[in-house]
């Protein structure tokens, strides 16, 4: 019986060990759940877009609702210029959402509770947004670091502060998702342990907490995927429509 609440985050190898040079690229349980969530997304959206009937069935309705949800989110936050990046933000949102939601099923592994996974996603977004900004505006993109109407004496300090706040984006993006998922799952495990240790007499209170926490965690799983996607839109908006 795994009493340690952190054992649920352990990554272990499934199948043979594969090594390229010094890098261990064996197939782990984390990779398994990434594959599962990607396959689930592919299957659901392929089924949903296969028959374009006027009266949609449930799967088609699901696909259409998520399409309009993400497309509205992009047009609200980043404007019409961000339309070409729809497919990227849509797949990002769906991947994070499905990874979070698969983690809610008992005995599964939550991929997004590992900082390296979320940090790679965030670093990719950060580099992509910076490259897009330089392509669209050239060196004028550096104006992002120089707010208008600042006295010349304060300018070097402000530029340093702006650069730090720009560099902090991928960290805040990745830490937020990782910390929320890890804290939530640890808390659920701890309360589950209380149910066992307090037994039939006192176990009902932590059990009711556990039920409430499960509901909260499902909300957090959706909300964190949403925040991840909407912040990508906001960063994209900064890169596309430079206003300073």
């Amino acid at each position, binding site marked *: 019986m795994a009493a340690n609440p952190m054992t649920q985050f352990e990554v272990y190898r499934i199948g043979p060990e594969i090594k390229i040079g010094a890098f261990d690229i064996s197939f782990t349980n984390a990779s398994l759940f990434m594959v599962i969530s990607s396959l689930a997304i592919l299957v659901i959206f392929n089924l949903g877009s296969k028959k374009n009937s006027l009266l949609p069935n449930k799967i088609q309705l699901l696909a259409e609702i998520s399409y309009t949800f993400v497309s509205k989110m992009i047009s609200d936050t980043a404007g019409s210029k961000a339309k070409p990046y729809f497919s990227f933000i849509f797949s990002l949102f769906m991947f994070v959402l499905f990874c979070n939601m698969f983690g809610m099923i008992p005995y599964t592994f939550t991929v997004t509770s590992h900082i390296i996974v979320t940090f790679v996603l965030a670093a990719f977004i950060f580099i992509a947004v910076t490259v897009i900004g330089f392509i669209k505006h050239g060196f004028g993109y550096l104006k992002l670091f120089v707010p208008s109407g600042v006295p010349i004496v304060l300018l070097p*300090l402000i530029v340093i*502060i*702006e650069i*730090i*706040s720009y560099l*902090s984006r991928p960290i*805040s993006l990745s830490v937020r998702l990782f910390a929320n998922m890890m804290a939530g799952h640890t808390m659920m495990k701890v309360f589950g342990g209380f149910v066992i240790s307090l037994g039939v007499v006192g176990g009902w209170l932590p059990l009711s907490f556990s039920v409430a926490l499960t509901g909260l965690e499902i909300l957090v799983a959706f*909300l964190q995927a*949403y*925040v991840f996607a909407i912040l990508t839109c906001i960063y994209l908006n900064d890169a596309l429509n430079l206003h300073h």
Partner: protein
Amino acid sequence: MPKDPFKTRLEIAKKKVLDKKNQRKLNPSSIGTAFKLSTELVSAVAVGTIIGFILDKTFDTKPWLILIFFFVGVVAGIMNVIKSAKNMQK
């Protein structure tokens, strides 16, 4: 006393607008932006400290740059929070 039909219609329309405004306060995106604030502050401090640490190592000025950049990071974090709070009010 018969009420003016236009006035009742106006009242109904006003009520509808108010209802919509109240609904906007409760939508999920505002909860989402509230989640943002806490990490925004911490991450800027972390980045500032890391930059200070790296610069200290390269210029060999051991405690000074990390101290300065820690406080610059704090300022950047507070500015981040103010910026996103302003965005939330829009």
